């Protein structure tokens, strides 16, 4: 009996210690947000940068932007929070800001947010972000179409695009000496070369979604309504089922996600497929992609997307937030971080950025897709409800 009691007591003590240990750790983690290097002085300002997207997006802020910014402003500690991949990550930021607004807080705990296009309409409608662009030095270089219009919402003055990423058709020149220049030619090529074109459907990556979207743009010719002017109207989707059925009847290889397409292309299992240009360049830079592979942006075009830098309406450190964005939107950082490090197209006027970019990075980015081609055939994704419907239609037909 006694030893049983003793054992029981021991287990209780152990459990309490364990729980206390967990609690203690949590407290410790809370007490030192964003602590990276042992800084001696207590920083006066902690700038909270929340970014949607995969871990690479948080790494970008932590490793490539924050250190340089800290050199300029030594008393600022940059705390980066990743909110998760895809539109869900942007939604998390929207939800958090809205909750703080509804709670009547006068200081919100996000100073800079990096978000996708899909949440812009709600952010502006709810009055959650500021018109700050006119207060920046580099605002004058913000010229792109997507800095004014985000899936049909007027966003002028609210956003500086951090970068623009684009989808294109990657191909293996050994197997495809004359790559198709249009969707028409591509479809003929697919029929003539069964299973040599690969894409990932609509699951596991946006490169497949972009291809399906481009296909629908081409077949319907309704790009303006779907993506630029709106308004959303379900009646304009009447011909989609037939189009999707036709697309699905093509003899293609289905890959597993963005990476799957790149992998199979690299191994020569497929000869062509839609990819994100930045991923394609990154893989080449890391030696994971055969350097001979090329890109083609086919007509009438494929979608790409920016991510936007925005400032919440009641950011606790608004002034510093604007300085941070200004730093990130400067031609030097755009050249070094956005173009050279990540293989994206610059978010600000390319003419201001390109003179500062190394020849090698320029070749990577513009050898296959010239800037004017990008302007002509680089489309945007459709309004958010259309985009959802495209994915649903693809699943259901």
């Amino acid at each position: 009996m006694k030893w049983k009691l003793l054992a029981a007591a021991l287990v209780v003590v152990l459990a309490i210690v364990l729980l206390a240990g967990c609690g203690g750790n949590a407290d410790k983690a809370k007490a030192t947000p964003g602590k990276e290097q042992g800084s001696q002085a207590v920083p006066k300002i902690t700038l909270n940068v929340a970014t949607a997207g995969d871990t690479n997006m948080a790494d970008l802020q932590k490793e490539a932007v924050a250190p340089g910014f800290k050199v300029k402003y030594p008393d600022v500690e940059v705390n980066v929070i990743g909110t998760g991949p895809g539109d869900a990550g942007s939604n998390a930021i929207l939800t958090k800001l809205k909750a703080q607004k509804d709670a009547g807080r006068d200081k919100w705990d996000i100073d800079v947010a990096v978000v996708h296009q899909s949440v812009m309409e709600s952010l502006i409608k709810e009055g959650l972000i500021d018109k700050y662009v006119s207060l920046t030095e580099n605002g004058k270089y913000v010229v792109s179409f997507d800095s004014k219009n985000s899936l049909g919402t007027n966003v002028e003055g609210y956003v500086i695009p951090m970068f623009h990423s684009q989808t294109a058709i990657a191909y293996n020149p050994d197997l495809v000496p004359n790559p198709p220049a249009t969707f028409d030619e591509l479809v003929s090529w697919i029929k003539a070369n069964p299973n040599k074109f690969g894409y990932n459907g609509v699951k596991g990556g946006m490169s497949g979604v972009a291809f399906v979207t481009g296909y629908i743009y081409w077949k319907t010719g309704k790009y303006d309504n779907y993506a630029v002017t709106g308004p959303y109207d379900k009646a304009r989707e009447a011909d989609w089922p037939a189009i999707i059925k036709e697309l699905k009847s093509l003899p293609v290889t289905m890959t597993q996600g963005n990476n799957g397409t790149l992998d199979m292309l690299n191994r020569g299992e497929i000869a062509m497929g839609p990819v994100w240009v930045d991923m394609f360049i990154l893989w080449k830079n890391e030696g994971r992609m055969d350097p001979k592979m090329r890109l083609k942006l086919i007509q009438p075009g494929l979608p790409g997307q920016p991510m936007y830098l925005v400032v919440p309406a009641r950011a606790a450190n608004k002034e510093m937030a604007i300085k941070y964005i200004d730093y990130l939107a400067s031609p030097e950082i755009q050249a070094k971080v956005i173009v050279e490090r990540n293989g994206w197209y610059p978010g600000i006027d390319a003419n201001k950025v390109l003179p500062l970019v190394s020849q090698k990075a320029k070749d990577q980015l513009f050898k296959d897709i010239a800037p004017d081609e990008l302007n002509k055939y680089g489309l945007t994704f459709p309004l958010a409800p259309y985009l959802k419907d495209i994915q649903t239609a693809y699943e259901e037909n």
Partner: protein
Amino acid sequence: MAVKGISHPDRVERWAGVAVSAPALALVIALFCIPFLNSFFISFRREAQWTLGNYATVGRLYLGDILFTAGVSLIALVATLLVAVAIGGYLRLRPNRVVEFLFKIPLFIPFVVVGHAMRVFLAPHGLLNSALAQVGLVNLAAPPSIAFSWLGIVVALTWKNMAMALLLVLGAFRGVREEYLESARNVGAAEWRLVKDVLLPMAAGSVAVAAVLIFSSMLASFSIPLMIGSGKGAQMLMIDIYYRIIYQQDYGVANALGVISYLGATGAAIYYLRTVRSGERS
């Protein structure tokens, strides 16, 4: 075990028992019961209304995927158990540390690494086919694609779970006393008969536990099906849940799929409790 008129020390002991199990119970309630109930309720909500719509969507779009997930998990489970029982039996009868260690390696390899390794190994132009092509067994112009079909998922899941199964099965086999094996040997049983007719029946309970654990983890596999398998046709359920959340922001259908996965895993557990446990008691 509660009896009327218990003496004082017994009462103390009962309270001690409650005290000991309280932290564990609290953890289970906080980390499993509450999230499960939450998930269960959300699966019946759509646009702030109570509805069966989420399950209707599941029925319309994902019925095939549910069957596919159960099927792939079952086939992988059978393959895993066959390997584990065979190797476990061999190691019980002829202990061999090197072989045992080799089979435990998958325990320490993360799912993502397994997924990527299998993708590279089993791809149409992957290591396996390239090696077989060297000896003229495979034509690389039209290679078989194990990685990008359901078979790829089965192979990867089997390889990854084999070590866990072996650990449990071998432990149970080692619990079988040598005398039984000796008597069987005395009447002339061959080694495979020892495994089939002595070790396996006596360790049935442990094998069933291993089966339930592994089946549940296979139902819940995400990173492996994300990297291998075919983008065409049926998908594993966790891929669908991820897609519903990330691409459609549709938590209703995602939770409905989650509840169905829970039920699948619970079903396996209940089946185990009713058959194996009752068998042990009789």
